């Protein structure tokens, strides 16, 4: 049985999602990204996987839970974001949503870090 330790695995997941999201955002905003970029595809698959009701991939299940906790998006919006990331042009409305989610995920990361340190 662990207390702070139970959060450390989750912390690593959130940190990885946050890094992925920021990497993709920077490249999209800089205009140096394409749908074939592996990181962008990885993020797209997370959003598309989270948009279906069931799934067998733990990473997607956790992403879905964090999305729901941090940023209340319905399945339709998740699909829109996922499909936009796989298309040539990512609209500014999608970038705005990704920015808001990145901010929410940062709060989730900081909160999980506090739990890891026993501050919760």
């Amino acid at each position: 049985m662990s207390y702070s330790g139970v959060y450390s695995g989750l912390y690593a997941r959130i940190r990885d999602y946050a890094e992925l999201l920021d990497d993709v955002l920077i490249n999209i905003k800089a205009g140096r990204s394409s749908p074939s970029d592996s990181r962008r595809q990885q993020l797209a698959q997370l959003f598309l996987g989270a948009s279906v009701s069931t799934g067998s991939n733990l990473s997607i299940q956790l992403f879905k839970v964090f999305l729901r906790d941090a940023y209340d998006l319905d399945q339709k919006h998740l699909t829109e974001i996922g499909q936009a990331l796989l298309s040539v042009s990512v609209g500014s409305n999608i970038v705005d949503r990704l920015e808001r989610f990145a901010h929410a995920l940062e709060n989730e990361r900081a909160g999980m870090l506090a739990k890891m340190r026993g501050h919760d």
Partner: protein
Amino acid sequence: MDGYLSGAASQLMERGRVLTAKIPRDLPRDYDTLAQTCRKRINIQLEHLHAMADDPLLRESKYQPERFRLFKRIVAELDIIETVGIAALDRANSDDHKLNELLERIAREIHYPLETPVVTTLSQQYFHIYPDMNLLCVPLTEGRFLLHLPDLYHELAHPLLSAQNDPIVEPFQAQFLSALSDALKYVSTEKSKEDRRRGPRQPGYLLQIWEIAWVKYWMTEFFCDLFAAYTLGPAFAWSHFHLAAKRGSDPFHVPINRSTSHPADDARMRAILHALDISRFKDQAAKVHECWRSYLLQCAARPEPEYHRCYPDHLIRTIAERTRDGVIGMQARICSEDTKDPIHALLNEAWIKFWAAPDCYVTWEKQAVNRLFDSRSPTPTIHDS
């Protein structure tokens, strides 16, 4: 903010270099993996810091939110490396060395398929593990006693679930995902029932909290408990009883407002007892069960109706069975009445001794621990004092 971030980055680079210099060079080889992990992770953060400070793109105003989040992640990462990894290396002492040897022996006994974690006695919060550092933390004096050491087996299971691209542990992870799918289907079915019932709002909200808890925490905890129950046997059930009796709260707790990190103690015990039944430790499972029922009576604990809905028997049994299939699938050793491995035997014997003569146990334990850690033999046998 550009000036602040550049200055802070320079200061953090220096901190990273100081941390690298703090890695001791004279520790036993058991610590090499942790030292390498710390060194590698510091270097990754130094690369991020250089990018943050020097990349002209990142210094443009429209990238400041991303740059600031990167900065916060770097600070957090260096904090973890310093307070967890480097601290464990810097303060490693003879107690740590002994526990590292013990964990290595346990790993060999149970055919643990990953690198054995490094142990440190720096924990301030009972047993816990940092899977991505492969560092297991135990309280300062816990290595001098035997009754809680079964929790080492629980902690060993966490990295099995977080390891990536390792076909050896994939059967265990596949069973975990199947069990999680079972749990989510169950919650989904309950939600559908609620929707049809058009009842009050709270039960639907409750189900959402449970769903989140299953995904984030509970299935992981059940799998780790059950891995320990299958590889160690009754001693783990007793250890769970011991922990609940000493530090537990409501054994039938059901989260109402927000998800909890651990399932209810009684649900965990039910899963562990089912695993002992499957492993044919029926007599010992019955003894643990009797003691557990007595404990529940003593603390006047009674389950609310929602408790059984939260942790239904059929789901607990399915999880226990799936964990067993996963342990078998990755070819770890499942223990039985015939298992004679020395550490396994000692930890189970400790509980037998404890119940046979609780008042005399401390004397026996002292001698057993001395022989365990003082022995130069890699496989000491511990018998009656």
